């Protein structure tokens, strides 16, 4: 245990790579496939160097056909392998939606439990890099609608490093959403970082005045907002959902029982999004705890714009979160 104290400087990208490397080393059934994951090293350079280390059998470049290689991943999982399939962005994953929804999510149920699909699909999500509307959406909330799969949204280095292994151990399909603005996030991790829990949300900042519920890249905006609010005497509790399906209701409900105010911050759209689902659950389970209506800060209901100032205006930002929080705790 003394090794716990030793830490390493790393990044979100490196943490993901380290997690893949660990999984490949621990279990020879694990392999990675996707567009440009091999020779190019992954479009976000997550798998750079892994081809040389593990060889083309286990680091496999695929044709540009999401439906085909996700389907192949499902087949491999059914055949006893533990595939990690990388899809370049969530926008392109829609081409594989049929495979994910109609096959991966259903086979266990349609086979009466005879066949399960232990598949992990990683993909980038989110805006903020001026990649325009076909590369910048946050559709993880859509996937969280589907029974039969688990949805993970690692925000921290710890989760980037620790979520993959338990995801591979899950007998059912797991989708991991990596916000594209997080790959360069730097920080430290314990040298011998280990797997993390993938069932529970986590309180990242404590406070008694209101509960801010978020996940992925928006989490850090919420934490910045909480720090600024704290300087003005407003103590926000910030919760990282971490897992979008199944949602860990208990953690945010416990917080709301303390603060009586709930603000949901989601880079997805408001209408029919995961924020709507969370809001509904709060109404169903904590109505009598609420001292003010649930509020949401979400992305503007437009295709994410290309121009920087418009893209920034379309996304939840620290100042919009602060404004909403202040509005909720003010008394006139």
């Amino acid at each position, binding site marked *: 245990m003394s090794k716990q104290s030793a830490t390493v400087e790393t990044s979100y990208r490196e943490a993901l790579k380290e997690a893949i490397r660990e999984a490949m080393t621990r279990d020879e059934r694990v392999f990675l496939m996707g567009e440009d994951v091999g020779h190019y090293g992954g479009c976000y350079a997550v798998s750079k160097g892994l081809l040389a280390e593990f060889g083309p059998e286990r680091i496999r470049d695929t044709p540009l056909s999401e439906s085909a290689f996700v389907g192949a991943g499902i087949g491999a999982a059914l055949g006893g392998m533990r595939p990690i399939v990388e899809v370049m962005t969530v926008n392109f994953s829609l081409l594989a939606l049929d495979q994910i929804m109609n096959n991966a999510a259903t086979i266990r149920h349609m086979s009466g439990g005879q066949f399960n699909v232990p598949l992990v699909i990683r993909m980038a999500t989110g805006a903020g890099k001026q990649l325009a509307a076909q590369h910048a959406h946050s559709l993880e909330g859509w996937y969280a609608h589907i029974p039969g799969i688990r949805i993970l949204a690692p925000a921290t280095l710890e989760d980037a490093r620790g979520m993959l292994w338990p995801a591979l151990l899950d007998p059912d399909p797991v989708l991991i959403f990596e916000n594209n603005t997080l790959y360069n996030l730097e920080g430290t991790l314990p040298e011998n970082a280990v797997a993390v829990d993938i069932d529970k949300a986590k309180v990242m900042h404590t406070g008694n005045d209101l509960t801010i519920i978020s996940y992925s890249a928006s989490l850090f905006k919420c934490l910045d907002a909480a720090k600024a609010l704290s300087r003005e005497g407003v103590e926000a509790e910030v919760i990282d959902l971490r897992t979008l399906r199944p949602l860990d209701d208990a953690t945010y409900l416990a917080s709301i029982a303390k603060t009586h105010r709930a603000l949901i911050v989601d880079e997805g759209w408001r209408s029919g999004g995961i924020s709507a689902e969370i809001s509904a659950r709060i109404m169903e389970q904590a109505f*009598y705890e609420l*001292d003010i209506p649930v509020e949401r800060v979400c992305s503007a209901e437009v295709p994410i714009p290309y121009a920087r100032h418009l893209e920034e205006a379309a996304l939840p930002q620290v100042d919009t979160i602060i404004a909403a929080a202040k509005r909720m705790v003010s008394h006139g």
Partner: protein
Amino acid sequence: MGEFRMPSLGADMETGKLVEWLVKPGDRFKRGDIVATVETQKGLFEVEIFEEGIMGEPLVQAGQRVPVGTVLAVTHPEGAVAVTESTMQAPPGETAGKPSGPLETLSAPAATPPQPSLSAERVPCSPSARRLAAELGVNIEDVRGTGPHGAIQRTDVEMAAHHPAAPAETSVPSPTAPATSGTLQEGMRQAIAAAMSRSNREIPHYYLEMDIDMSRTLKWLEGENLKHPIRERILPAALLLKAVAKALQDVPELNGYWLDDHLQVKPEIHIGFAVALRGGGLITPAIHNVDRLALSELMKAVGDLIERTRAGRLRSSEMSDGTMTVTNLGDLGVRTVFGVIYPPQVALVTFGRIMERPWAEGGMLGVRRCVTATLAADHRATDGHRGSQFLDALDRHMQHPEAL
């Protein structure tokens, strides 16, 4: 400069307790705004103001009980706009002992919008605050909300729990919960006793009764109601009210006040509608301009009024300006109601239950649905002849429901 006075909310009111100011000095108000709540023996009422201007310093603080007519605050006209409606609040105070003043001077002008919105009435309160109030034994009605849109939130309840409502501290040592306290029930009984004793003492009543065949009317109504969703259906009570209003147009002498030994016929038809309270007692708030309301509007107004009466959210004008009263005890199986006129009104129309009865007509005997309408009228103001004409007109209008 104007004066905002303790209004008279009925002939039997002598004093009122200012429970809360809803405007602050310097606030702008316009005609019809609710500026204060006042507690009388009959409950808690919202008091409107009938001019425009800017509120000055209050002369009476929340919690004080003062005679009707006492100046509660001075008001200032906004800019150069002259306000000439100070007659609206002409001081009945000097004659508080005399029943004539208040009702006369406070009768709302015909321009008063007949249907105020309901949403303005409900005080928003967060679910959590409501639960906390129940836990702490705080009456939510006594809590002043400081949240968005004046919503009551947890801090407001906590504040109220630690500092019990100001009125209780500065005035009579009565408990804070006005709407439920036993003293209110007792007070209401006293008020009803005073008004009814006065009525029986002063008003020479005469009574006329008529059975009205409701078969055709109800058949028409049932047909109409089939065309509408349940929530929009019209109850026979609304037809009765409307028919009364129409008959009053034919015999206007029954619509008004007997004041200073004279009959004052009122041009507006504001029908007081007797509402029994669940905890006992009775209030007769007025539905404004019944003759001008369509049946659907009237039905809505009746529902709204009953709901607000029972919730204790009536407005001052509704309490003070009924021009005659209708009592309907039909739901209890009573056949004939012999009522006591609410002074200074000069007539009361009462209805019993609509029930099937043997009915002879044209030499034939049949079964018809009938109601007994009874007119109690002030013999100083009208005679039996006019009273009969009224009942006759009532019957006539009832037979043509499509024209109501």
